[in-house]
């Protein structure tokens, strides 16, 4: 009886298999060319958002418990340290208006058309879910209701994180600068030479591409955004050159850059306008 049932099922199964394989292959190729999975995600974002927050729940609970349990002494110490930090930073900020004025004046002298960079900053929180390990994307909790646009710069307190690549109703997707499909135009702060910085999929490493063998470049050089790619505003920190492999047989230097922002351990990020 049971084997008969199994036998009966087997006839349909090959047809079913072919139909499903055909469907998924068509989906794949259509999606790669038309990118309609974004649309689907946007339509179902009210369903997807709760799933994401449910998956992020354990770590949220852990975080809130651990902040609750931290000893009072620690908190007092931390508060003192933070106050000190704020004091120092507000001291630095005092100089900024005069520096901006000076910068403007100097730029006028140089006939540069570069205007000063963005002003509005908004905080967003990360939704910590475990996406495919091969992906360098993160999900943040701000969506279409906050006037976010595609290509918007996302930074954290120490450097550039990436850009917004997909916007849904309640969450959006940020492609990190370490994504293999991502590249941006940076500039070497020491020599003012432009450098293409590209990701390789590893969150601790970036590579600088197409640098000729005789280029003036050193380990420890700081790379900042150039503002010339029309995506990232000028002057934000990307990273530091960590390793230069000089091989005479190659056409270009192979240069590795350590990103300055902690790309894998963030909880809060900032969106720039």
């Amino acid at each position, binding site marked *: 009886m049971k084997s008969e*049932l199994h036998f009966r*099922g087997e006839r349909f199964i090959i047809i079913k298999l072919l139909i499903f394989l055909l*469907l998924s292959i068509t989906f*794949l190729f259509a999606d790669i060319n038309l990118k309609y999975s974004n649309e689907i995600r946007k339509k179902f974002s009210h369903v997807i958002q709760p799933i994401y927050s449910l*998956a992020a729940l354990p*770590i949220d609970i852990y975080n809130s418990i651990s902040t609750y349990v931290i000893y009072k002494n620690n908190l007092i110490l931390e508060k003192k340290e933070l106050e000190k930090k704020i004091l120092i930073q507000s001291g630095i900020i005092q100089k900024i208006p005069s520096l901006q004025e000076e910068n403007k004046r100097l730029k006028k002298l140089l006939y540069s058309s570069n205007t000063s960079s963005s002003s509005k900053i908004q905080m967003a929180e990360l939704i910590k879910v475990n996406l*495919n390990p091969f992906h360098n994307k993160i999900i943040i909790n701000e969506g279409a209701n906050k006037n976010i646009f595609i290509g918007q710069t996302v930074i954290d307190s120490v450097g550039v994180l990436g850009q917004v690549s997909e916007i849904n109703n309640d969450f959006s997707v940020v492609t990190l600068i370490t994504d293999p499909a991502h590249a941006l135009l940076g500039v070497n702060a020491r020599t003012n030479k432009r450098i293409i910085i590209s990701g390789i999929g590893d*969150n601790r490493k970036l590579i600088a591409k197409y640098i000729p063998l005789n280029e003036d470049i050193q380990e420890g050089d700081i790379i900042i955004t150039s503002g010339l790619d029309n995506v990232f505003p000028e002057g934000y920190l990307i990273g530091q050159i960590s390793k230069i492999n000089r091989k005479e047989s190659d056409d270009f230097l192979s240069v590795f850059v350590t990103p300055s922002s902690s790309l894998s351990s963030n909880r809060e990020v900032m969106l720039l306008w």
Partner: protein
Amino acid sequence: MVNKIHFVVILILLISMIINLFPLPEIITPYKPPLLMLVLIYWSLAFPNQINLTYAFVFGIIMDVLLLMPLGYNAFLYTVTIYLIIIYYPQIRLHSYWNKMFSLLIILLPYFIMSTFANNMLNISYDILEVFVSMIVSILIWPLLFSVLRFIRLKYTV
């Protein structure tokens, strides 16, 4: 009876989908086993007449949407793997406990090979070593997963 099986299986699959999304420490993440795949394999071994390719395809599509993958990527892989299970399930069911682990290796091997092929075709970066370790990990957690799911099956379905 059959409805009950479907209900329990869908519930367990949804739960394992959410567990699949749990954030893990950065060091472990690349070696994460494809949990939903393993749970699907278990259920299709347990009820090959009810849990078939439709489940694999639908949950693959849902997984693609959730994991920001190109649509159809996981659907393709799941469908092929569950097809292999359904074709060979009479043999696999007869295997002993440790033999089952070995036959799982044989079934997971095409899954991982196909995923690397798909990654190559779609320009998704991956590390072959990480893929290999993830396969070993999924075989190692299989006995535990098996006994948990078996407990659930005996208690709630049959």
